Structures are given as C-alpha cells and as structure tokens.
C-alpha cells in the first residue's frame, strides 16, 4: 500500500499530457507509471522520478507529438462573433461591475497614457536632426587631485582650435557658446536679446533650416547674425531682412540669415545666433584666457564622423590632445570623451548642461507608479470577475458541453477583458487630454521640456497598453473559468467553489489598500516636509524682502528713486540671493594675524553685499561689526565671515572675538575679518552649512537690490516700484520677486513631486475604493439568504453588520500595518537622506491619511452591509 503513495512528478506527467496525442496518452501514461512503481521498488524514489522524467522526454517523438489542429484555430476565429455578443450582453447586464471595471481601468490607463507620451517625447528629443545618429558631443572631465572627478557637458575653446589639425577621422565639427546678452538696436527701437555664438559649420551638422540666407556662409564672417523667424518678427516686423544691420552697444551686426523657429524637442535652443568668429574677434585675441585649456565652462563642441568612421581613433586623438595640454596644469587633469548626440536629453548628469535633460531613473519611477496604478485596476477586474463566477459558470458549462475546449473558454474571457480595456481606452483618452493640460501647467519647466503631442507611435503604444492591460486583467479569471468542470456545474451550480480563491482575493485587496495608503501617507508626509522647507529657519530674515534683479547698469539713480517710496523701509545690494540654490565660491588663503605667509587654503562661498545687507536680513553678528569703510570697487579691505570659516581654518581657536583682525586672501586681495556672524543657510537645505563670507561692494550692476517693504497696499507699492524701474531702465521689464517666493521656487521640484504623488494617491484610493465596494456588494448579495436565515433565527442588525464587515476590516488593518512602516522607511532611508536638514517625520501625517482612507472604506462597507442586514427576510426567503 505504501508504494502507491509515491507518485511520479506531476509536472512531468503534465508535460506528457501536453504534448502526447490523446489516442496514445492513456496507455503510455499507464506504462510509464508501471515502470515508475517498479523503479521505486528496486532503486528508490529519487531514481524512479529521474527515470520517469527522462522517459517523458525520450517519448517526444514524431509519432507521439500532438498534431496542430488547424480546425481548432478556425473555431476560435469563428467564435469571435459569439464572444463579442456574450461580452456585450454581460457588460449591459452587470452594470455595476462594468462601471467599476471600466472606470477603474480608464482612470488608471490615463496615467499610463501620460507616461507613454512623456517617454515618447523624451525618446524623440533631437530626432529632427537628419544626422542625429552620427553626431557626438565632446564632454570634459575635470580631475582635481584628491577630489572627486566632475563631468562637464561643456569643453574648452582650445579643443575646437586643435580639432581641425590634430584629430583625423572626423567629418566636421562646430562650436556653440552660450551667454551673449545685449540690447539690440533696430532703428529707434531697442530690444533685449539673448543669443548663442555658433561656429561656421553649425547649419551643416545640425538641422535648423534657414528660410533666408546661405547656410554655409551665414556664420562665417565676424559680426554675422542669424535670427529665428520669431525674433525677426519681433525686431523687424518681417522676415525679409537679410543684409539689414542690428546694433549692439557700439558694434553693428549684419543679418545673414533667418532660421525657422527651433523645434520644441531640441536640447539646443536659441532666439538668435551670432557667428563664433565674433566671439573670437572680441575676446579670443585679448589673451585673457578665453581659449585657455582649463576654461571649459561655456563652449559646446559637436562633431560628426565620416561614413564608417570609428570613435576609437577620434578618442585616441582626444586623449593625445589632453595629454599634451595637461602638462601646463598643476594638481589636476582634464580629459575629454565623446557623448552620442541621442544620449544628451535622456542621459547622465553633467555639469553646465545645456537644455533640458531628464534622468532615466525618473522615467523608471514614473513608469513604475503608472504600472502600480494600472495593476491596482487590474486587481479590481480580476477580483470581481472571479467573485461573480457563480453567475457565469452555467454559461461556461453549456459551452463546454456543446464542445468548447478549455482554450476556447480562455479565449472567450481574454477577448472580453481586452474588449473592456479597449472600451476603457476611449474614456481614458478623454481623461488623458485633460490630464495632459494639467500636467503641462503644473510647472513652467514641464511645459518647456514636453509637448506631449500625439504621434502614430504614441497612438500605437496607447493601443498596445490597452491590450496588455486587458490581457493582464483577464488572465486569472480566464484561467479560472477554463478549468471549470462542465458536468459538476450543470448538476449543481452552487457546487462550484467560488470561495476557493478567496485567499488570492484577500491578498489582492490588501495589496491595493497597502499601495493606496503608501501613496496617501507619502503625499501628506511629503507636503509637511515641503512646508517645513519653506518655513525653515535659515538663520536670517527673508520676510518682506523684495529682490530686484539688475541688468548691468549701476543702480545709484534707481536706489535714490526707490528710497523715496515711503513703503520701502530700507534697501541694500547683493551680488546674489543665497539659500535658493545658486552658489559662488572662492579658493581663499588664510593668514593668521601678523603672519606673512598663508597657513591654509580652502573653498569659501561668497556673497558680495553693501553695508545695508546685514541689517536688512538680520544676520546676527556674534563678534565685530558691520562693514565700516565704504571703499570703491577693488579697494575693499574688510570681510565678514560665518562661524564655519573659523572652524574650517581654526581661526583664533574658533573664538569669534579672537578671530577679528585675521587676514584672508580672496582673489588676490587681502581682507581683514571685521565681523563674525552666526551660521546660516547659504545653500538649500540639501546642503550642510559651510564656510561663507560677505565681501563689500558699493554697487553690483549684475546683482540684486534687496528692498525691505512694509506696506498695507501691496499692489500700489509694486506699481510705484515698477514706475521707478521704468524711469531707470526702458528696455528690460522689471524682475522683482519676494524672497519667500524665491525660496518656494527653489523647492518647486519637490512640490511638483508632492503634487504628482498626491494625484496618484487620489487615483489609487479611488480605484481601491471602487474595487472594495464591488467586493462588498457581491459578498452581501451572495450572503443575502444566509443573512435572512440568521435574522429569522434572531440575529440582531448590529451583529449582522459586524459579521459582514469583520473580514474586510481585518484586511484593511493588515494593509495599514504593511503600508505605514514601508512609508516611514521610504522617507527615512531614501527620500530624506538627500536633505542635510529636515523635520522629523510626523506621526500625525503618517496616520492621518490612513484614518481618512479607513473611514471611507468603513462607511462604504457599513452602508452596504447595513442595507443587507435591514432587508426583509420574508421577501428574500420567499423566492427560493
């Protein structure tokens, strides 16, 4: 008897059944079993199982393998009409379930569509260049001794000088330099204009078509100017302007071409191009390091390879150039490499990058979030379909008795789910159009990067998404139905054990709710952190300070005008606005008091300010005083530092009082420390507090005016300020922002993420709630008779509600137990590690969202179960 307990491996038998012809199967299976039993007896179970498996493999022969039945496929094809018909009828008959499924799928897929459109946009960046597969950008790697390597998208002008003669094996190259900014005078009018310097071959390598002018010579001569159509219309009012001149300061530039406007999906963007020869003529000849090997900050060099050219040779030549040039450098090396043109917009992070760039990881995260949301909707479909299998099992039974095979039933249910998801696609497309508008408006940067236009490729991807979603959602129910035993279903419909898959359904519900809770908790915690960043104590005052950006003119007159406005209490000047992301630093040398030689050197961040800056921003001086002297530019001798500087250089044993009088050499000037201020946040909260110094300058023409405003009528004050600005600068519009708004702007990326996650949280909760609602309705419906009988026997209504709710509440509790720690760890270990300073993760935020979601679910469950519990048992039981 014991021998019979040993069974051959089931999957091997499954394989045999799968491939073997039905006619041969039964006795062959019997034969193999007989041998198996013999082997178990003689050689042991392990050996017998191995032999059994090998025999199954060995029996795969031409005469045993099942023939593909063309008729089998033909029936599928013929039955499609019938599948459509039954699917349609089912959709109409079960309105609630159809509604839940279609809405859930539509909502979740609209997010998927958005992600597809985003990915499509990013992947088609720079595709409009005819030659885009063959263009490479030369990028620079800076290796300072003892410090990590930094990678730059830009490279030195020296590289371009040497390319022509020293790098064989490139077809052509061009150089671009950003940063031209001037006031263009056309006749009597003046317009501010920002332009890009571009080398002669610019139009040859890159595809920016000209509507007028000769692309090969347009950027050849110095002082040539190419305008885009938009700029041309702004400056001249028409585009027929080749040969006209535009005046910048004292120089005349000749318009040599008009280019079509730059396509949106381009990392190179310009309003106007000026021949690079101009920059060479203006700056290159002066010898102030314009073309120095280590001046690698502003130029971008693009090369093309000849047909069949190899990168290896070019790279070798570049290595040779850097080797030769590096000899002149001390304590660091600069190397060059090539970056494919197609990898620029969607590639690695490089400093000084030009144009939009997206981290590939961002795409994965977005895709992952969309996947999770769609999965949640698929869970609904799976759950509800399996749950209502009772109603459809008879149909499957009849089909099977008439002659449908398992695969036919599988096909039918897959068709149905794909049909539903295609229907959902229609709705989700409408939603997507809304979502797209919202997404583009969420942040000005987003609209700059994406267009999200429809293309054939994106539409095909949309349809593919719908089909895949349908298949994924329908797979489990289809498998479930295809395995239904026709005979037992027809004998007794209740014989089919609908609650057999209850475990799986529970897991799906828990997963859905856990995800929703993670999303909502993430949103709330993220939002409170964001608020924390905005209200963070930076160590100085930012309230009521209006920063006005200056445009290169000395602002003495404007200051006088502004000071007369009564609401402007005080004003100061600074070269930059700290704590909103930008940072400027100097390598300084420290001379202890009286010493002739420096003892230490290091990087110190800097802001150049006037004497009013410190009081307006309420920086606390722990020792010394504000700037006393009022020297002209270049003659300053005073310096205010923060406590970190004392710590970094160990000045005066870190005692602020003793630090006064020590000397720090900045940029060749020896400055004496006259004040020490309390540490404050110069960078954003992502950065640790580091050494910072304030230098003195009476006037910063490229910097900011900082106005301390005290006003009850902000609009009129702003109008007054603007009038003063217009008197001062007729060309540029005023650029004035309150400090607090600038800080908000600095964390806009974070707030955008919170908004997106918040939106996804909303969707996830909607979908999970729909699913739960469907399950509750179904469960109470199927248990209606049980409830009625219990009621007749004397059960109380609250007792019945408790009985029905119990299971669901337990599931929600499990989901919460999973979600909350996960969210906490997510923030604690991953998201907040970037930030050097942040608030503790609040328990209230973590629990708050959970409570709301739970409450929603409990109300939903409660209302449905109460309805069932209140039903009149006589009516229910009468119909039996």
């Amino acid at each position, binding site marked *: 008897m014991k021998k*019979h307990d040993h069974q051959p491996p089931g999957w091997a038998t499954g394989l045999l059944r799968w491939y073997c012809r039905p006619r*041969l199967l*039964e*006795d*062959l*299976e*019997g*034969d*193999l*079993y*007989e*041998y198996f*039993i013999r082997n178990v007896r003689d050689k042991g179970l392990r050996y017998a199982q191995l032999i059994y498996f090998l*025999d199954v493999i*060995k*029996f795969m*022969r031409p*005469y045993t393998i099942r023939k593909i039945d063309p008729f089998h496929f033909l029936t599928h094809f013929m039955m499609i009409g019938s599948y459509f018909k039954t699917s349609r009828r089912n959709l109409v008959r079960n309105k609630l379930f159809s509604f839940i499924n279609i809405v859930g799928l539509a909502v979740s897929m609209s997010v998927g569509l958005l992600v597809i459109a985003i990915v499509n946009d990013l992947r088609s960046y720079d595709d409009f260049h005819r030659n885009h597969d063959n263009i490479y950008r030369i990028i620079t790697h800076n290796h300072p001794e003892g410090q990590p390597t930094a990678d730059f998208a830009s490279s030195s002008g020296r590289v371009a000088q040497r390319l022509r003669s020293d790098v064989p094996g490139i077809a052509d190259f061009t150089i671009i330099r950003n940063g031209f900014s001037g006031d263009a005078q056309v006749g009597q009018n003046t317009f501010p204009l920002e332009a890009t310097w571009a080398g002669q071959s610019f139009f040859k390598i890159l595809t920016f078509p000209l509507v007028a002018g000769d692309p090969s010579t347009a950027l050849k001569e110095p002082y040539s100017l190419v305008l885009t159509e938009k700029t041309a219309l702004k400056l001249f009012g028409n585009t027929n302007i080749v040969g006209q001149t535009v005046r910048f300061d004292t120089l005349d530039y000749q318009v040599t071409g008009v280019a079509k406007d730059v396509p949106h999906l381009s990392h190179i963007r310009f309003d106007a191009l000026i021949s690079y020869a101009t920059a060479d003529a203006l700056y290159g000849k002066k010898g102030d390091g314009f073309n120095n090997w280590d001046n690698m900050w502003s130029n971008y060099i693009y090369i093309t390879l000849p047909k069949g050219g190899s990168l290896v040779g070019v790279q070798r030549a570049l290595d040779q150039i850097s080797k030769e040039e590096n000899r002149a450098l001390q304590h660091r090396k600069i190397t060059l490499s090539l970056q494919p043109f197609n990898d620029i917009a969607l590639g690695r992070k490089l400093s000084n990058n030009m144009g939009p760039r997206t981290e590939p990881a961002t795409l994965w995260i977005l895709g992952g979030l969309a996947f999770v949301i769609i999965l949640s909707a698929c869970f609904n479909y799976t759950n509800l379909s399996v749950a209502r299998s009772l109603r459809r099992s008879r149909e499957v039974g009849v089909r099977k008795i008439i002659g449908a095979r398992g695969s036919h039933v599988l096909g039918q249910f897959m068709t149905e789910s794909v049909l539903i998801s295609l229907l959902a696609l229609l709705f989700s497309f409408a939603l997507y159009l809304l979502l797209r508008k919202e997404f583009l408006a969420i942040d000005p940067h987003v609209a700059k990067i994406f267009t999200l236009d429809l293309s054939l490729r994106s539409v095909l991807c949309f349809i593919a998404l719908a089909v895949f979603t349908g298949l994924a959602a329908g797979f489990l129910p289809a498998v479930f139905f295809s395995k239904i035993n026709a005979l037992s279903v027809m004998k007794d419909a209740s014989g089919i054990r609908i609650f057999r898959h209850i475990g799986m359904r529970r897991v799906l519900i828990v997963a859905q709710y856990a995800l929703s809770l993670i999303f909502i908790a993430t949103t709330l915690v993220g939002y409170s952190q964001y608020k924390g960043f905005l209200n963070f104590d930076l160590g100085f005052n930012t309230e009521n300070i209006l920063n006005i950006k200056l445009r290169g003119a000395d602002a003495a007159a404007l200051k006088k005008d502004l000071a007369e406005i009564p609401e402007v209490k005080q004003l100061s000047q600074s070269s930059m606005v700290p704590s909103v992301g930008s940072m400027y630093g100097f390598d300084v040398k420290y001379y202890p008091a009286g010493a002739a030689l420096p003892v230490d050197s290091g990087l110190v961040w800097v802001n150049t300010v006037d004497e009013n800056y410190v009081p307006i921003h309420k920086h606390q001086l722990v020792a010394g005083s504000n700037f006393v002297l009022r020297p002209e530019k270049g003659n300053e001798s005073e310096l205010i530092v923060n406590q970190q500087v004392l710590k970094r250089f160990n000045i005066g044993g870190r005692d602020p009082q003793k630090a006064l009088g020590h000397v720090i050499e900045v940029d060749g000037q020896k400055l004496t420390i006259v004040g020490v201020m309390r540490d404050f946040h110069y960078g954003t909260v992502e950065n640790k507090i580091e050494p910072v110094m304030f230098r003195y300058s009476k006037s910063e023409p490229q910097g900011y005016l900082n106005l301390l405003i005290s006003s009850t009528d902000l609009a009129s004050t702003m109008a007054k300020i603007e009038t003063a600005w217009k008197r001062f600068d007729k060309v540029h519009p005023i650029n004035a922002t309150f400090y607090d708004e600038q800080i908000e702007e600095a964390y806009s990326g974070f707030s955008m993420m919170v908004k997106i996650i918040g939106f996804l949280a909303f969707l996830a909760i909607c979908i999970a709630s729909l699913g739960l609602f469907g399950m509750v309705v179904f469960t109470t419906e199927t248990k209606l008779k049980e409830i009625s009988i219990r009621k007749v026997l004397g059960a109380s209504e609250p007792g019945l509600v408790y009985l029905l709710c119990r299971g669901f509440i337990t599931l929600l509790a499990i989901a919460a137990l999973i979600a909350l720690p996960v969210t906490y760890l997510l923030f604690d270990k991953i998201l907040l590690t970037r930030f050097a300073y942040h608030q503790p993760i609040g328990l209230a935020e973590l629990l708050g969202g959970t409570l709301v979601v739970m409450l929603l679910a409990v109300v939903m469950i409660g209302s449905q179960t109460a309805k069932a519990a209140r039903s009149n048992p006589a009516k229910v039981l009468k119909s039996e």
Partner: protein
Amino acid sequence: MKGTNLGEFEELVLLTIAALGLEAYSVAICDELERYTGRSAKLGVVHAVLNRLEEKGLSKSHLGDASATRGGKRKRFYEVTHAGKVALTRAKDLREAIWRDIPGFNLEGSI
C-alpha cells in the same frame, strides 16, 4: 509489397505478441522480449515498433479495463492481424527455404 516487409526486431515483437496471446500489452511484451533474447528491451523502442506494426496493419490493439496498479490507466492489448500472421509465416517460410538450400557442410564446424 512495400511496407509489409518485417525487420528483425519487428518480427521478434510480432512473434512475442502472438506468444503472449491475450496478455500482450507493452510492458509484458518488453519483459517477454528480455526473457527470450537476454537483452534489455527499452519501452521507448518497443512502443515505437508497436506503433509501426499497427500502422502497417500487422497488428491491432484495443484498450482493456482500468486497474489500480497502473494509476487507473487502461492497458492497450495487441493482437496479430491476419496480415500479420501472413507476414510471419512468409518470413518463416523464406528462412526455411534458404536453410534447405544450405549444403550441410557449409555450417559444420563454425558453431
């Protein structure tokens, strides 16, 4: 008469079927063959030959009753058809005709 020619192993299997009578199913045939020849007869080989004999019309088969010893699977019993009997007899006659023509001394001493 292409297709009715018997290979040596086919002939052995067909003879075993005939010898086993009503008990001729694949596992039993294998066992009998092993007993007659002293060589191990693999089920895979025998199964293929049984299938081929049936295709040639030399044997026919039917499924027997289910029994618990085989995991509830039925046995397929084989029997020799008329054509099979003819083929066996012809093969035997052929050999005997040749044996008769062998002069006695030609095989003497070689055994």
